[in-house]
């Protein structure tokens, strides 16, 4: 028996009519074949008394004709037919020659070994077969089972077996007649189909997982297909970044996001044309409608690492592009902050060096003149006056010390080591001393101190002096030679010091910066200094539990106000 065509097998296995016909034929054969030599496997009437006298009474010549007809039939159907005795002894008394094609055993081998058939059943299917057979025996209904049978070479053949029990008039079981169809091809086809289905389902699941992953990815992901860059996929972040206000899936990019398309089209075209991925770092993206070319760090500006990856079809052509953008705004802003801080530090070192050079310059000049005098060299016939130069040296040393103190304050404050010597101090008295000292040599009309009476609190006298000095010298420095007003007053448990000038003033942006470290509102070219005064003052005020504020307009001057609790928090 050749391995049957799956279609035919399906027909045979699924259609009972055909099976019935075959089984009927087998029954007939069995009935008449008691004396027939059926090839090698013969049905011997002697060993089968059940075949009964009827069969034996058939005429030999007629029998031969019938036998030939049925034999031809049996041996041509694409299945193995068998008759098995249930009366002990040899189990199988007939098997059609197709057995050889199916399993590689010839009829003689198959029928001569009573348990060969059982040995060839796949071990895993033996129990199922036995149970089904037992069930059929008990109930008498036809036996049906799909089993795996091993060929002589050990290959697995799937067999759909069906059999019926044949009984005598008394209902006693005589033998089993059946047919086995090779359904290996069908089974394989089915298995393949199931594998394909499973693979498809797995692919679907995989796609869904991927989609889910892309959707939930903390990055913008989009797939653009075809020459029009049709939006095949757009995850929520991508939609948000692109400013999508509706579902734009399926739309060409140029329709969905015209502005964005203008910007990225050259990149997309190039990736499509070359098949080479495009990678760009820190691409700036501004919200739609915000013009480009504004200073960096504008409100809403974001930065992305952008990748455009070509996706290829089966023939290796680019048929889609995967756009992937990671938001690096936080990183860019943080780096800028660090860069700014480093720049500030660098500038500070340069400014500090410059600021230290100035008093050193004064010192050196005074020393050189003094040296000329001491050497007795004629200095243009002028009388030597060493004291004058020693005084000048003193002034420069004072300046140098103030600068160094300022630098040390920065270090102390930064390290949190600003130590306060608290004592009872009159702020009015401190202010008066500072104003006198700071404005000595100036037109007396240039400054005015207003105070109703002593304002005494618990503060650090030197630090308090430092605060007043800083504000008053700033007012003089930036006051455009116009009068400055200093006022001290008490409001409940709060002492208030205010210093007003009518000088160059401050822009709102500068007002926000001036209390920060190393910041200066005035250009360095015009006004030297470390850019630390107000920062140090601010830190001292805060250490004393107070606060400092500024009100100002460019060109109109500035009003600095310091409020200190009378009893400092520390």
């Amino acid at each position, binding site marked *: 028996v050749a391995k049957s065509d799956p279609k035919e097998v399906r027909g045979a296995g699924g259609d009972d009519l055909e099976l019935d016909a075959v089984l009927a034929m087998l029954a007939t054969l069995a009935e008449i074949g008691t004396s027939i030599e059926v090839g090698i496997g013969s049905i011997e009437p002697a060993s089968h008394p059940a075949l009964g006298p009827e069969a034996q009474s058939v005429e030999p010549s007629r029998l031969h004709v019938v036998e030939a007809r049925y034999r031809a039939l049996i041996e041509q159907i694409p299945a193995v037919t068998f008759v098995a005795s249930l009366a002990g002894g040899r189990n199988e008394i007939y098997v059609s020659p197709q057995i050889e094609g199916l399993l590689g055993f010839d009829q003689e081998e198959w029928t001569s070994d009573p348990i060969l058939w059982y040995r060839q059943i796949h071990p895993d299917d033996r129990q199922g077969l036995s149970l089904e057979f037992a069930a059929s025996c008990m109930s008498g209904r036809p036996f049906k089972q799909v089993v795996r049978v091993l060929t002589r070479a050990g290959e697995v053949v799937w067999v759909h077996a069906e059999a019926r029990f044949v009984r005598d008039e008394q209902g006693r079981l005589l033998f089993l007649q059946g047919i086995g169809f090779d359904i290996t091809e069908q089974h394989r086809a089915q298995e393949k189909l199931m594998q394909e289905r499973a693979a498809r389902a797995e692919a679907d699941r995989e796609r869904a997982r991927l989609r889910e992953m892309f959707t939930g990815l903390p990055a913008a992901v989009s797939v653009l297909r075809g020459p029009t860059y049709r939006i095949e996929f757009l995850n929520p972040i991508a939609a948000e970044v692109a400013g999508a206000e509706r579902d734009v899936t399926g739309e060409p990019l140029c329709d969905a996001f015209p502005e964005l398309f203008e910007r990225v089209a050259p990149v997309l075209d190039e990736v499509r044309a070359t098949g080479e991925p495009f990678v760009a770092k820190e691409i700036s993206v501004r919200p739609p409608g915000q013009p480009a070319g504004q200073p960096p760090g504008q409100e809403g500006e974001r930065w992305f690492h952008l990748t455009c990856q070509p996706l290829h079809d089966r023939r290796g052509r680019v048929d889609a592009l995967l756009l992937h953008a990671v938001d690096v705004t936080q990183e860019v802003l943080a780096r800028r902050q660090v860069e700014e801080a480093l720049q500030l530090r660098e500038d500070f070192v340069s400014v500090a060096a410059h600021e230290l*050079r100035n008093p050193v310059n004064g010192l050196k000049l005074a020393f050189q003149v003094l040296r000329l005098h001491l050497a007795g060299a004629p200095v243009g016939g002028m009388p030597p006056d060493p004291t004058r130069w020693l005084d000048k040296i003193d002034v420069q040393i004072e300046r140098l010390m103030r600068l160094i103190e300022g630098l040390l304050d920065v270090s102390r404050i930064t390290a949190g080591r600003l130590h306060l010597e608290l004592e009872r101090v009159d702020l009015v008295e401190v202010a008066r001393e500072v104003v006198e000292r700071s404005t000595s040599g100036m037109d007396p009309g240039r400054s005015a101190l207003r105070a109703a009476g002593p304002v005494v609190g618990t503060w650090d006298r030197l630090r308090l002096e430092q605060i007043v000095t800083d504000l008053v010298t700033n007012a003089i420095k930036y006051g455009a030679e116009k009068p400055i007003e200093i006022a001290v007053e008490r409001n409940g448990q709060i002492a208030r010091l205010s210093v007003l000038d009518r000088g160059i003033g401050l822009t709102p942006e500068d007002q926000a910066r001036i209390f920060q470290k190393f910041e200066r509102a005035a250009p360095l070219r015009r006004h030297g200094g470390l850019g630390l005064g107000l920062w140090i003052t601010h830190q001292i005020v805060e250490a004393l539990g107070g606060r400092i504020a500024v009100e100002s307009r460019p060109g109109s001057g500035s009003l600095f106000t310091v409020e200190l609790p009378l009893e400092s928090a520390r």
Partner: protein
Amino acid sequence: MEVKPQILIVEDDREVRETLGYFLSAMGYRTAGAENGHEALELLQGGLRPAVILLDLMMPVMDGWEFREQQLGDEDLARIPVIVTSAMTPRGEELLADACFLLKPIDLQDLLRAIERRVRPRFDGGAN
């Protein structure tokens, strides 16, 4: 008696201005002082024609760079040689290109030599 050349000292630091003035007077120069670029420009516009201008860079009101720009914009004033004195290496080279530069702290002998080179015309007639 020979009339000594005049030096204009543009310097916002009073101590420094006074010391330089004293020293240069002692060396026989006539001196004039200005607190910033603006004051210096006013003196020049008022007819002062020093032989050399000593120019600090960082000053309030009008800094050295701006003064130099104004000076170079006036054909007459542009001829006056300038010695820049600053505590920091100057930027804005195009404005300061043909000026001599002395880094603070200033050595008085260096200063004197720089001034002398500029006030004594050489035989080829150049001012520098």
